[in-house]
């Protein structure tokens, strides 16, 4: 009978698939030297690991996993200020022509060899010369000539000219890899780092189930853990591509932490849930709209001002972001960067009548513009209609163009838009960020601005290492950006992550990149009960 044959064939195929799927793994020998708290911390993420080579830039989970093995030179506080990590001192000498890092001497790779300045120099020189794909660090190295290990604990960077960005940005964004191991691979971005891991962090990868989980086990000694011993024996990253499934897994107790930022709507729901604790991760980036200044009439400041006054920012923060954001005071130096922010900056008022007057002054009638945004960003997709409706009250027609991420990126790159809406996750270093955003050749110059005055202010700030001068120049540049609506910075979103209330003692760091899962946090976390 055909049914019988079909069924038998299908059963055979399924049986074969089960057999091929994998033979049942046999139990591995447990680590008899395990000490202290033997709990396992399971962390959920919505993105899978793409590549375990930390010199490449791929997914957020890549960073979380590799950060637990490869130390950064510096870390950051909620206000963006740099803090020691592998480097205990850093700065410039030789009239700003040489940058330096002084390293701690107690960091070791998991094979027992110390982390030295040679590893740091190798990492920096490799990034400078090979520019691994997708990495961000090379962009900060324009003025770097070469890094040299002058001793086991001191690295010096010779520079073409003084550059205030280089040391702090390279210090924060670079993760240090073992020169001995990575140096055997050339070009380094072909190295997948998929086995025989070395770690100088609190944990080391020990097993991978591709697409499902990544297990790291404790490494001792780790100098930033209590008594040199990280507090949990295993950290497991589990991948749940759908955020709803991820939340169900947390509610059920299958995972202990959700590391990615929760959608605003889910925050309110989970806040009421017993047994789950939400942590507020301070935002260090911002969400903005930029007006394409290469297109008429957006090259007219009056038109840009009219647009800026045609948005109800409070409504956006309260409705679309559900109160989980603060005003950026319409400045690219947001209140998060307290050291640089000027308290006198005020947000553009929502005033459709003023918008109409400004358009009349500019001689512009029936203004019609398109606005692009990524549908993968649900928050922006939620407030785009508010922008459209508000603008209509000022007589401006905005055609919303929500699109998939890659189309959006393609349009962004080619400058094919009137209004661009998007977010930056981390804006930690004002000079660096302004250079990227507002210099004519800046990689994220979405306003397409080419303004000699603004360029001069930014370049002056870049070329000095005098902190008071930098602050003054940065404030002048930010005021110029704000007054001329070169960028419309709308809000700083505070992110929320969730964990089981059984776990305590997380260290909260700004942005989704670090949040509560950075190495120092996970080396000190505790399980109660």
């Amino acid at each position: 009978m055909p049914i019988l044959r079909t069924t038998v064939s299908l059963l055979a195929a399924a049986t074969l698939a089960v057999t091929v799927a994998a033979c049942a793994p046999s139990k591995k020998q447990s680590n008899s030297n395990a000490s202290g708290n033997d709990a396992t911390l399971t962390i959920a993420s919505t993105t899978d690991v793409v590549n375990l080579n930390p010199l490449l830039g791929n997914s957020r989970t890549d960073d979380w996993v590799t950060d637990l093995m490869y130390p950064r030179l510096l870390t950051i506080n909620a206000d963006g200020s740099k803090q020691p990590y592998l480097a205990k001192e850093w700065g410039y000498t030789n009239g700003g022509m040489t940058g330096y890092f002084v390293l701690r001497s107690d960091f070791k790779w998991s094979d027992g060899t110390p982390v030295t300045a040679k590893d740091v120099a190798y990492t920096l020189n490799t990034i400078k010369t090979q520019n691994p794909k997708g990495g961000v660090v090379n962009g900060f190295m324009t003025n770097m000539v070469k890094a040299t290990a002058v001793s086991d604990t001191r690295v010096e960077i010779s520079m073409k000219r003084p550059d205030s960005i280089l040391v702090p940005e390279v210090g924060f964004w670079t993760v240090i890899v073992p020169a001995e191991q990575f140096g055997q691979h050339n070009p380094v971005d072909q190295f997948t780092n998929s086995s025989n891991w070395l770690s100088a962090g609190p944990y080391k990868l020990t097993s991978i189930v591709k697409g499902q989980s990544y297990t790291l086990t404790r490494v001792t000694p780790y100098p930033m853990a209590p008594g040199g011993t990280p507090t949990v024996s295993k950290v497991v990253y589990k991948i749940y591509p759908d955020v709803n499934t991820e939340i169900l897994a947390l509610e059920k107790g299958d995972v202990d932490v959700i590391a990615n930022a929760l959608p605003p709507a889910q925050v309110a729901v989970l806040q009421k849930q017993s047994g789950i604790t939400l942590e507020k991760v301070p935002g260090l980036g911002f969400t903005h709209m930029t007006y394409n200044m290469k297109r008429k009439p957006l090259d007219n400041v009056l038109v840009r001002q009219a647009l800026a006054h045609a948005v109800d920012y409070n409504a956006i923060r309260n409705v679309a972001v559900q109160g989980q954001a603060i005003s950026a005071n319409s400045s690219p130096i947001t209140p998060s960067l307290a050291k640089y922010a000027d308290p006198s900056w005020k947000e553009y008022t929502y005033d459709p009548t003023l918008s109409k007057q400004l358009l009349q002054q500019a001689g512009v009638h029936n203004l019609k513009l398109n606005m692009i945004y990524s549908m993968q960003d649900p928050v922006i997709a939620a407030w785009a209609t508010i922008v459209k409706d508000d603008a209509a009250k000022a007589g401006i027609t905005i055609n919303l163009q929500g699109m998939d991420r890659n189309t959006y990126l393609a349009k962004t790159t080619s400058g094919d838009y009137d209004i661009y809406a998007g977010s930056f996750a981390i804006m930690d270093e004002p000079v660096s960020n302004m250079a990227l955003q507002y210099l004519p050749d800046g990689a994220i110059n979405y306003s397409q601005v080419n303004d000699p005055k603004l360029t001069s202010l930014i370049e002056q700030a870049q070329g000095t290492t005098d902190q008071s001068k930098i602050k003054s120049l940065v404030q002048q540049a930010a005021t110029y950006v704000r007054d001329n609506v070169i960028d419309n910075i709308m809000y700083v979103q505070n992110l929320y992550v969730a964990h089981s209330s059984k776990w305590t003692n997380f260290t909260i760091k700004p942005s989704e990149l670090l949040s509560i899962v950075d190495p120092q946090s996970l080396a000190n976390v505790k399980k109660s009960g």
Partner: protein
Amino acid sequence: MPPLAAFILKRLGRAVLTMWFAITVTFLLLRLLPGDPAVAVASTNMDAGMRHQLLKEYGLTQPLFTQYVKYLDQLLHGNLGQSFTQSQPVSSVLMARLPWTLLLTGSALVLTVLVGVPLGVIAATHAGAAMDRLVQTAGVVGQSLFVPSVGIFLLFFLGLRLKLLPIGGAYDENAYGAGWYLSVLQHLALPCLSLVLVSLGSYVLTMRATLIDSLGEEYCLLARSKGVSERTVVWRHALRNALLPTTTLLGLQLGFLVGGAVLTETIFAYPGVGRAIYEAVTQLDYPVLQGSFVLLAGTVVLANMLTDLAYGLLDARVRTA
């Protein structure tokens, strides 16, 4: 040439042609997508020069025809290429995932048949009765179901509330030996059930309709008049003929199930090829996408070819058609 050999050759030729068509369309469609893999990297420091360099490394600055010829040549040598983002051969990336997708779609297909045939028979033999109406209503409802909503409902109800089955993954990393197989089955249950629920409706309704037709045929009347029991008429005579169209549907449903695996594997965090496709789309990893489609198209084409061949073996009229 004997008719059977000619029939097999013809079907093989069709399969090869279908594969070539699928490969070509996939190749061209990916390149019609907005953006490119360098843009998808989206590094804030990537300038135009770096972007061009990256595209050159990926071989995407060559003329389209050259890329196409190179790709076909690669495929003929059994090489699916190198993943842009994972720096690994595509075959390694996919082979780690394929068994899970085969397990999921294979078991969903088997269950669909095992449940669908009896339900179709029950409905057809009780045509017009309450049981038939019930099966028909359930079938129509099943056809209108959508994997994500069914998936989340099952996860919430059976996974979270009743705690009967695990939420996400393919197996428990701490399970070993026989426990590992049990864990695989437990993790398979919800995604499989989800696929069965959304594909069962059309199978049952087709089965019912064709069986009702068969039961009205003269050979069934003859069998009844000879005193053959109704049970034998249904299961021995009518069902054999009714199964031919449903076998065709089964081949078609394999394509649906393979496509549905993208959504199912995403919702259930199941680490199959569907998930690899979902991830490769966001990164515009052309080689992984092309490799996945070749693999999945190959599976569907092979299944359909086998169905055709089975048809030919079962029914001499098909061989000569």
